[in-house]
């Protein structure tokens, strides 16, 4: 758990990082996201939770346009997400994403996984990109694995590599899509530790997760979604101790009940 002293350091500025207004999305005729309004300030650490099928993954995948929204407006760092490819690429290079199944590139070594985007998107010289990559590998505590292939690493190590890969692009916002759901219990902690460390450094983070311990430790806001809508949002303490809606109470009793 993070001490209060450290927590105070995680400042939230007035600058708006993500602004979503009246956003709607359908899969065919199925209305997945309904009237989403959400504003994220720089430095915020937001945890999104909710039952499966509630649209939480879809919501964060809209933020870097892995999914397309049909109505409403999404602004990321002042750039609006439309079908304009230039805007999309700009947003994607500013927003890092960590997936449930890591999605490392199996044909490249760990180091190549990390340097690929900096070299080809940011045009960083190879040498410099490798230095940056080694720095972040050190940060996620696996520099010795740099020349192995993803298939040779454990799940927890792969997920930490995936986090490092995103960080190499020096993103201003990080999205986590159930980063620990595919991991063995023993490995969840090492990934969460990395994420907590990132939060302490002031990264703007949006994290879809069921790790309520993580939410209590680092989140400044918890958002609860159900049926494609934001049902409740609050500070973690209030959210867990004093949930307002019936749906939230039911959800919390189910995941915390045992």
């Amino acid at each position, binding site marked *: 758990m993070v001490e209060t002293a450290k927590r105070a350091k995680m400042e939230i500025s007035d600058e708006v990082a993500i602004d979503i207004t009246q956003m709607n999305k359908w899969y065919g005729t199925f209305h997945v996201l309904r009237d989403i309004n959400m504003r994220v300030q720089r430095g915020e650490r937001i945890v999104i939770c909710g039952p499966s099928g509630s649209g939480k993954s879809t919501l964060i995948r809209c933020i870097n346009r892995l999914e397309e929204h049909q109505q409403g407006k999404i602004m990321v760092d002042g750039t609006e997400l439309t079908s304009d490819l230039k805007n999309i690429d700009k947003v994607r290079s500013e927003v890092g994403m960590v997936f449930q199944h890591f*999605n490392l*590139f199996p044909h490249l070594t760990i180091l190549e996984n990390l340097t690929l985007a900096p070299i080809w998107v940011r045009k960083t010289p190879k040498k410099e990109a490798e230095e940056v990559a080694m720095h972040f590998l050190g940060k996620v505590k696996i520099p010795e694995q740099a020349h192995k292939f993803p298939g040779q690493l454990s799940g927890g190590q792969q997920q930490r590599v995936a986090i490092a890969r995103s960080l190499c692009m020096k993103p201003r916002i990080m999205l986590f899509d159930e980063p620990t759901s595919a991991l063995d219990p023993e490995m969840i902690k090492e990934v969460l530790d990395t994420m907590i460390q990132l939060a302490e450094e002031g990264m703007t983070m949006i994290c879809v997760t069921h790790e309520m311990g993580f939410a209590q430790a680092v989140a400044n806001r918890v958002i609860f979604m159900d049926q494609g809508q934001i049902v409740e949002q609050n500070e973690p303490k209030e959210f867990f101790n004093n949930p307002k809606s019936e749906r939230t109470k039911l959800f919390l009793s189910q995941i915390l009940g045992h």
Partner: protein
Amino acid sequence: MTSQSYVRTEMVAAQKPPGVQTGIVLWMREKLFSSWLNAALTLVAVYAVYSILATVGPWFYRSVWTGSSLTECRATLAATYGEGVSGACFAVIRERWQQILFGFYPRELYWRPTLTLVLMLVALWPVLFSSAPRGVLWFSAAFPAVAFWLLWGGTVWLPVMILLGFAVGYLAYRLISPLNGLLGAIAAILAPIFWWLFLCGPAAELVQSVISIELRQLKSADFGGFLLSTVIGISGIVFSLPIGVLLALGRQSDLLIVRTVCVAFIEGFRGVPLITLLFVASLLLNYFLPPGTEFDVILRVIIMVTLFSAAYMAEVIRGGLAALPRGQYEAADALGLDYWKAQRLIIMPQALKITIPGIVGQFIGLFKDTTLVSFISLQDPLQLVSSIRANTQWNGVYWEPFLFVGFLFFIFCFSMSRYSMYLENKLKTDHR
């Protein structure tokens, strides 16, 4: 009762496995005689192998390598081993091997295809083996033009001007793309085509009239034998892979027109027998071209074989693309790679790796299909064998020249197959 605890009080260290039996007896018992049925099948198989060897072995052993006709061969055989004994008459190959290799290519110019072959190996070196110096790749890129000049002859300036077409395209792109990216891409495609169609020939003639460098010009009718097969086969292989990749990508494209064109192309070429396409190449194409156009028949065949093979290739590669998890595309997107970079760096390396067996299978099939050109009266190796057998001296020779041709094809196809296994092994990084 002995005391056996159900919970460990101390952990057990790893131990050696129980002794594994080895040796020839065990191997035979397991692999050859594991049951009565298997023992019987083993014996039948041994007998079958023996009877084949018993027939073919002596035939090979009693081979005759000198002589200028089948009658001479038979006389030598009778003198050495007695009347009525059969033996191979490889004298026919000794006398005619050059014809099977080069067709009717002028004898004094054999050095040109031979040099081309050597240069081809040099050009392939950096493509096939990553340990080769990268600089050689420039030679590999220029090799098709070099080979064209060496094989067909004529002025050196024509292939130079053809190569220059790529520079023209690059120049057009550099000049126009700052104004508009799409326009630049279109210019990069149209400018070289315009160059090749209208300016290339006259420019080559002009330079030739000033600085004359040329080799004796040969016609496509002079080509034959393995030279013909390799020219068509290798060109088909080299050009069908990139076209196949583009077609596979086009078929997956979101753009309706691109997708429709690619699907129509693939299904069209796959739905027609190759032999039909070859007839189109040799006969029908002439009706569509403006009268008086001299469009080389080998070139026409190469184009048809390439397109035919590319259609199959596209489907093989599409299989590889379909096998990739969606997460790979998403990870590439999320890192900000654009479509072409994602394809080149993430998707294609993996898709091609998965499909190596299919691609190489297609290559081997294409190479062997080149013998079909005999139907449009090109002199492929089998056609040449037939004409050798029609000759009075060698009338009656049957197995020997066909064995020779089969052996040469086998060398090519087997090396491709071996290389593909080497490549698969080298690229194996998933550690599953």
